[in-house]
């Protein structure tokens, strides 16, 4: 029970931001003494564990002897090692080294791991001896720790284990050597790093270790490692190909670009496509030029063209555009789609001008693709061409033009789409125009202006058209749209009431709340009134500015309830609100 109480208090202490740690600078000594006293007492293990944890902050060399005593305790050793790894005092290293001599098994592994984390160079000779321990876990831990220390003595100790140790130890020694090689490379000793990695590559170790060492060997050699990189790209071993592709993205230098371009030219298509993606990730002019060439070459392998086209979307420049436009018109639907997506995503200046330039001279076969690009890039400058294309006798051109009009038309010419939406004899044109109208209206800055343009259709058109226009103004939003939809909700025609209450039920702004409340008072009982009540409560749940407003709205809803059914709707809605219990309590407390 005492342990539980302590844990709870510590949790609260944590919740308060562990502020007492801030007092450490005011006097770590007393705090540390207090914690050491816990370790020396007959306090429950829980208390000692937490004392260890806090000594990670407050401890010094003074705490080390008492912490070291716990290293042989299976339940508390892991807690003791927390401060022994973090206290910046050589006494911790000494204590861990001393403890290693008297421990075995998992506890010894833990101590060795801590020595590795602390990179204790004075432990090297001891760790070297432990490489020969009969417990493979201990020997492997020693190898890993030596790799973390990574000095010349540690590396010298690892080499025999790599060459002739038991399998598990060879595996660990290989990992350790690659870690040590990284340190050598960082210290400017590339040749030593490469030699160490080569030793691992020659060793009888698992394939993953070989792959890691191969990476290290390439990087350590720099540009001189390119032939080794190419060797991996040509390998029959999937793992080594993977390492080659990975290093191809890491290794700097024009020699790498040149080697990758050469590989793309000679490798089998599937492999070449992977190299294309690696080259693309490197970026730069060589990559851009190569990818553009591949994309535009009809005789290039499909997989390569696909990979190149996709990559150009994020790196292509204006010079890449002709190749992409060629691919965008290809009979291969996947390639065409990839090229179109790439063009749609291109950031280079001048792309839009080039597309508009092509529009003027395009025939009916080419127009749908170019109009799709106008749509996806929202090229406003193409609007005159788009309007012209809307008159095309070719249906595919008209459909594409209407989609483009949705993205490019300005307010002054919105009527062109409206006329097509309500006046066309072609059902396909009408549907395309309606979709375009929705797109156009939603992006227009003048919401009320948009609604005003649509109001005559809402007032006089066939019911289906009126509902379609209501759906559009519902998406547009704004005060005038809200009024139009509210009027529909009160209309004598049921389909319009249905549309109006449906749209109000999902209105995006809170100014629909009074409208919905009025409807709950005005409408006869039935699904439209229920919808209004639920819509009002949805606004309370999702759009109320704060809890007080939410509670007030729920109280209002309750006050307008006509029976148990309404009250059930209110309380069901409250259940879904933030802080539902408090809201319900407040609402129920209403006089």
């Amino acid at each position, binding site marked *: 029970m005492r342990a539980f109480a302590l*844990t709870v208090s510590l949790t609260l202490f944590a919740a308060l931001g*562990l502020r007492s*740690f801030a007092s450490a600078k005011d006097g770590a000594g007393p705090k540390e003494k207090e914690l050491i006293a816990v370790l020396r007492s007959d306090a429950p293990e829980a208390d000692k564990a937490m004392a260890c944890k806090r000594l990670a902050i407050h401890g010094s060399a003074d705490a080390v002897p008492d912490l070291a005593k716990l290293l042989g305790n299976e339940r508390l050793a892991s807690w003791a090692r927390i401060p022994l790894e973090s206290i910046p005092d050589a006494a911790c290293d000494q204590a861990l080294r001393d403890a290693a001599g008297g421990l075995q098994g998992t506890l010894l592994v833990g101590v060795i*791991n801590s020595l590795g984390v602390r990179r204790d160079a004075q432990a090297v000779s001891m760790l070297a001896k432990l490489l020969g321990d009969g417990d493979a876990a201990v020997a492997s831990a020693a190898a890993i720790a030596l790799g973390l220390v990574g000095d010349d003595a540690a590396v010298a100790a690892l080499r025999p284990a790599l060459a002739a140790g038991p399998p598990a130890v060879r595996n660990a020694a290989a990992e350790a050597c690659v870690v040590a090689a990284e340190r050598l490379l960082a210290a400017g000793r590339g040749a030593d790093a490469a030699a160490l990695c080569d030793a691992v590559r020659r060793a009888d170790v698992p394939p993953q270790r070989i*792959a890691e060492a191969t990476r290290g060997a390439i990087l350590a050699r720099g540009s001189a490692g390119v032939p080794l990189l190419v060797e991996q790209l040509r390998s029959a071993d999937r793992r080594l190909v993977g390492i080659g592709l990975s290093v191809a*993205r890491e290794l700097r230098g024009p020699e790498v670009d040149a080697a990758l371009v050469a590989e793309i030219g000679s490798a089998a298509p599937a492999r070449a496509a992977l190299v294309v*993606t690696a080259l693309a990730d490197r970026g730069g002019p060589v990559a851009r030029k190569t990818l553009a060439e591949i994309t535009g070459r009809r005789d290039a392998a499909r997989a390569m063209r696909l990979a190149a086209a996709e990559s150009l979307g994020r790196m292509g420049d204006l010079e890449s555009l002709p190749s992409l436009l060629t691919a965008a018109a290809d009979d291969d639907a996947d390639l065409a789609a990839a090229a179109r997506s790439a063009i749609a995503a291109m950031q280079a200046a001048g792309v839009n001008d080039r597309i508009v330039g092509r529009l003027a001279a395009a025939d009916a076969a080419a127009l749908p693709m170019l109009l799709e690009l106008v749509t996806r890039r929202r090229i406003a400058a193409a609007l005159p061409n788009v309007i012209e294309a809307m008159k095309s006798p070719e249906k595919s051109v008209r459909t594409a033009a209407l989609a483009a009009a949705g993205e490019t038309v300005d307010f002054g010419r919105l009527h062109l789409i409206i006329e097509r939406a309500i006046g066309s004899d072609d059902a396909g044109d009408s549907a395309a125009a309606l979709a375009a109208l929705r797109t156009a209206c939603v992006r227009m800055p003048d919401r009320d202006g948009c609604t005003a343009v649509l109001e005559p259709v809402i007032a006089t058109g066939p019911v289906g058209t009126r509902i379609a226009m209501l759906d559009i103004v519902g998406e547009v939003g704004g005060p005038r749209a809200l009024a139009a939809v509210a009027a529909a909700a009160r209309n004598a025609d049921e389909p319009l009431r249905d549309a109006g209450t449906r749209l109000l039920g999902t209105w995006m*702004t809170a*100014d629909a709340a009074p409208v919905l409340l009025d409807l709950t008072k005005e409408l006869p009982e039935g699904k439209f009134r229920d919808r209004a009540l639920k819509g009002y409560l949805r606004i309370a749940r999702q759009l109320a500015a704060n809890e007080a407003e939410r509670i007030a709205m729920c109280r209002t809803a309750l006050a307008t309830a006509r029976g148990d059914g309404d009250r059930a709707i209110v309380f069901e809605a409250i259940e879904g609100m933030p802080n539902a219990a408090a809201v319900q309590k407040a609402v129920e407390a209403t006089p």
Partner: protein
Amino acid sequence: MTVRSLSRRHFLAAGSAAAIAPVVIPGSALGLDGAAAPSERIVVGGIGIGRRGGHVLGSFLEQPDVRFAAVCDIKEARRTAVKKMADTKHGDDRCTMHRDFRELLDLQHIDAVLIATGPNWHGTMSAHAARAGKDIYCEKPCTKTIAQSLALRDIIRRTGRVFQAGTQRRNLPHFAFACELARTGRLGEMRRLYAHPAGMQAAMSGWLPAEPAPDPKEVDWELYLGPAAWRPFNPRLLDGFNFEKGGGLVGGGVLEWGSHCVDLCQWAVNDRPPPVEYAPPRDGQIVARYDDGVELVFREQGWIPLGSCPVRFEGETGWVETGDSGKFVLSSPDLLAGRKVAKIGGYPATFHVRDFLDCVKTRAKPKGNEEAACNAHIACHAANVAIALGRPVRYDNATNRFVGDEEANRLLSEACREPWRM
């Protein structure tokens, strides 16, 4: 500002565009047009598949080139449930079950693993998986400390594995668009990034009174504890979601949600090294600063209601705010010019999983790669250190240590329980 006061200039994009899925490379180029050939198939194993893991696993199983072949869990009931899910999908009974994840990692036919244990295990298990030659999709938060973040990054690089943190919002169009606006200068010079931490308190799992431990076949407590310091069995600690998050000393909401929204802020500034200054919470905010003065603000309040996990990026000339609704608000509709952004509400992992799988094949870096995850996690951990110490701290990205602050530096790492290591 609330939605009610938004002018039309503050354009509310409401998803009129057709849904588009961000992909690295067309699926057909990778052999995804139809059933995948065996050589193109990625064999996946799952470790710690609970509620969240099951959701992500569903995204894996949707992919035509995935074969889910093995499940590992310390809980027998979960092992059985996931096997049933996978076998039903594949129409056979070949999914193998394992209690110890090392058994699963030893399976040579497994190419990649989904790690969805509690955060106590994420970093350590990812390191083990990488050394075993597996590519890794790991749920977030991926690490418990700053040192673990750096170590995991280095291990992934060294082993040449593909790593995807479970930061699936990087593959959702509205978040990607918002980050792109910031990253490409469309908002002007960046001034301030806002992230929603959903709680700024440190949390601690502690040591609860011992209760009778279940049969390890049903619940393996020793494996559950893994790298966390030992304590006796107590079912209240058997909540993987919170157990030892952030090392149990400096975890909490900043890490839980920060590994998503801070991660997005990091992406907005091109995944640069994390901020260098962190102040403790004040008036519901933690303010951190990058080395050029750009602020990263963790704040609880003041968000436009755009769903959970909101972020806001403010530049010299414009701003954008977005959240899990799939909608975003812009300071000007001009910012949208020339672009269509699909609206995908919620936070599906499908696109993130696809990004990962494509990169498994191409060996490219997925969006939530080890470097990006490392930087974002360091920012969260450093903010938590400021919370824990109750005072500002300064972090040096060159040395990866706090500047002149021994207490803070002692919180950089925490020993793994024996025999575990990073």
